């Protein structure tokens, strides 16, 4: 199958799981992250059903234009990340670090815009202690922003290794594993952007 050729395994697969340990570990970790964000999002849904009056209409408090730009940026960073992985699969040592660097820059920009958004909201009196609306907003988007920040730090390390030519066609596990985490963070934001800002 054509695509089977695409998925050149970046390292020896382990018997039983069929993938190498780091990748298996990342998927198990992402499973726990699903439960983590489920707890936050689930609580948000339940509180919003129980006390709809505590929330404002979309766009009245939260700035949708700037977060729409931020959403688009995170989608772009997912593309640069997956292009980096494709370059690693192809053994393209020139393109790999550049795509990774682009992902770092866009990811850091996302965190910067979110910090700016927070400063504006707090300046206008929308603080965590404001009530259900404020506390759920800052808890969910704050934890997501924290996850993005950690992802940027990991990407900086992987980018540094890529610039030193440490990843090859035969072994580029670091690129794939950090990519899985990065795409997961993008996926969570896709859900958060919809339920927090647009509904």
């Amino acid at each position: 199958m054509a695509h089977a050729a695409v998925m050149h395994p970046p390292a020896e697969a382990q018997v039983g799981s069929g993938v190498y340990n780091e990748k298996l570990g990342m998927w198990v970790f992402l499973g726990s992250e699903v439960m983590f964000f489920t707890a936050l999002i689930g609580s948000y849904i339940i509180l919003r059903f129980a006390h709809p009056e505590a929330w404002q209409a979309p766009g009245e408090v939260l700035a949708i234009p700037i977060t729409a730009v931020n959403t688009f940026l995170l989608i772009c960073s997912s593309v640069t990340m997956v292009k980096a992985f494709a370059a690693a699969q192809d053994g393209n040592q020139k393109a790999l670090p550049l795509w990774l660097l682009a992902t770092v820059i866009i990811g850091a920009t996302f965190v910067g815009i979110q910090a700016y958004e927070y400063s504006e909201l707090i300046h206008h009196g929308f603080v965590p202690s404001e009530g259900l609306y404020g506390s759920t907003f800052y808890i969910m988007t704050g934890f997501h922003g924290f996850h993005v920040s950690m992802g940027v730090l990991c990407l900086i390390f992987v980018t540094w290794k890529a610039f030193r030519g440490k990843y090859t066609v035969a072994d580029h596990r670091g690129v794939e594993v950090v990519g899985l985490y990065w795409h997961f963070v993008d996926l969570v934001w896709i859900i958060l952007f919809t339920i927090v800002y647009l509904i």
Partner: protein
Amino acid sequence: MEQVQHRKHPNYLAVFLGLAILTAFELGIAFLPWSKRTIVLLLIGLAVWKALLVGLYFMHLKFESNRIRILAVAPLPLAVILVVAVMTEWIW
């Protein structure tokens, strides 16, 4: 210098355009003068669609073994159980 091998990769650009277009749809739908229920259902549907695109193509679940797919999907029923159980707490 390692020889660059040009393999066939999924069409990442098409997935990107799909995500961008769906996000634009979401922004448009969010402010239409329709019933709240309709808007919420549409928005959640679009969000799930985008999440699937990211999971299938960017996280490569479309090309992974069933074991990894099962591992990736396993937490979702638990997530649904958590939310539904707490939402129906007053029944217990």
